């Protein structure tokens, strides 16, 4: 069981949350070229190792958070409020 630290509620079990995928993709401008949109909708880095990803505390505070997790060891090394993610 993953223990996910919600920045608002503290550590909560994985079953409280819904996964939201890669948290680094950025929505292109409305008039961006087709290729940029295809990239945004479909293409992912899918890294082996550290991954910044979105989770939704769906059975808790119902807020979104960004979690830093290793895709090989599953270790969680950080969690942030959206907009407060260090670069």
């Amino acid at each position: 069981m993953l223990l996910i630290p919600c920045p608002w509620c503290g550590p909560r079990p994985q079953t409280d949350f819904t996964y939201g995928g890669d948290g680094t993709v950025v929505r292109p401008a409305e008039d961006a070229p087709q290729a940029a949109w295809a990239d945004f909708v479909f293409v992912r880095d899918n890294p082996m190792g550290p991954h910044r990803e979105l989770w939704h505390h769906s059975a808790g505070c119902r807020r979104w958070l960004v979690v830093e997790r290793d895709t090989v060891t599953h270790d969680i090394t950080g969690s942030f409020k959206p907009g407060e993610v260090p670069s």
Partner: protein
Amino acid sequence: MRYSFLSLARNALTGHRDWPPAWRSPEPRASYDVIIVGGGGHGLATAYYLAKDHGITNVAVLEKGYLGGGNTGRNTTIVRSNYLLEANAHFYEKSMKLWEGLSEDLNYNVMFSQRGVLNLAHSDAQYNAFGRRGNAMRLNGIDAELLDRDQVAAMVPDLDCSPSARFPVRGGLLQPRGGTARHDAVAWGYARAADARGVDIIQNCEVTGLIRVGGRITGVETTRGVIKAPKVGLVVAGHTGHLAAMAGLRLPIESHVLQAMVSEPLKPVLDTVVTSGAAHGYISQSDKGELVMGGDLDFYNSYGQRGNAPALEHVVRSIVTLFPRYGRVRLMRFWGGIMDMTMDGSPIIGTTPVDGLFINGGWCYGGFKATPGSGWVFAQTLAKGHPHRLNEAFSLDRFASGHAIDEKGAGPIPGAH
């Protein structure tokens, strides 16, 4: 050596001590015509059909671990071709036809057992959707039967079909020609048959880099040195994204872990494959007597090859709800495998923007059943440099051009397929 009744009898006389190895273990050569990365069922099948159908035998299959140690040896072995969409229907039915002659073709018993695959419907809406899919299958020349509740109850006596069931059974869609096969035997059978035609199968050889000169592939770096080839096929299941990145490619794929489990062996109790999308679980009984069970992903990106308890619990709950009688059976083993989840739930089999580099991946939950067909079309793609009619639709560029093949209509969410 051809396996036959005679060879069995002869070797019985010497206590089965003198069987020759089923394939060689050669040192890698400096170069090949084609390199296949990944010694699972798909990679080995590709090598076999390259040699058999296209006369290309100067081929190496490079496997970082042992043959079939990836998803081939970790899957729940369900074989079916019960798809709604045209591209899927024709491709998986080709695979099904190859399964039907595979043991004879390979001279190796892959224990293909057409015991039927039954999808349960638990509501009127689901029953009607199954009727539609069944009709589409029959129009494509694929066997399908829509069963009502009584027919399901008669076919699967252990299933709770009572009106008070948590998941009331409305009926089911049966593909009688579906079934299961012995996963290891599929890898071993293809390996032996490919080796007999001259293919070099090289285990413990991890590809660590893809060598490119001017946008064209020229070979691979491996833990056993550089090996050259003008054509390289990536057939690495959950690691397609990771390998493609070595050639600077980003893909419409997320890697996820899927778990499965088996119970202690029982006397025969279940002679078909039963799946319930609503309950998120499926079950069959192996020839050894174990109940083989699976369900959903763990639902987060993973290369870890092991999952977590919640996904397992969910599957067990679902199976015990559908089959209350199995509630006291003990679990024996569970494990996970890493799968490429694509953005439309369909595989990617074809060319890439890098000349000479080909991809066969994105198999999501269901690539075992595709093994023969996948190898067959990929061999042709590698030999000719362009896809076969049956895999044209599974191109890498279908996403950007708006031609996704989304069987479930779930949208670009990998976990949802």
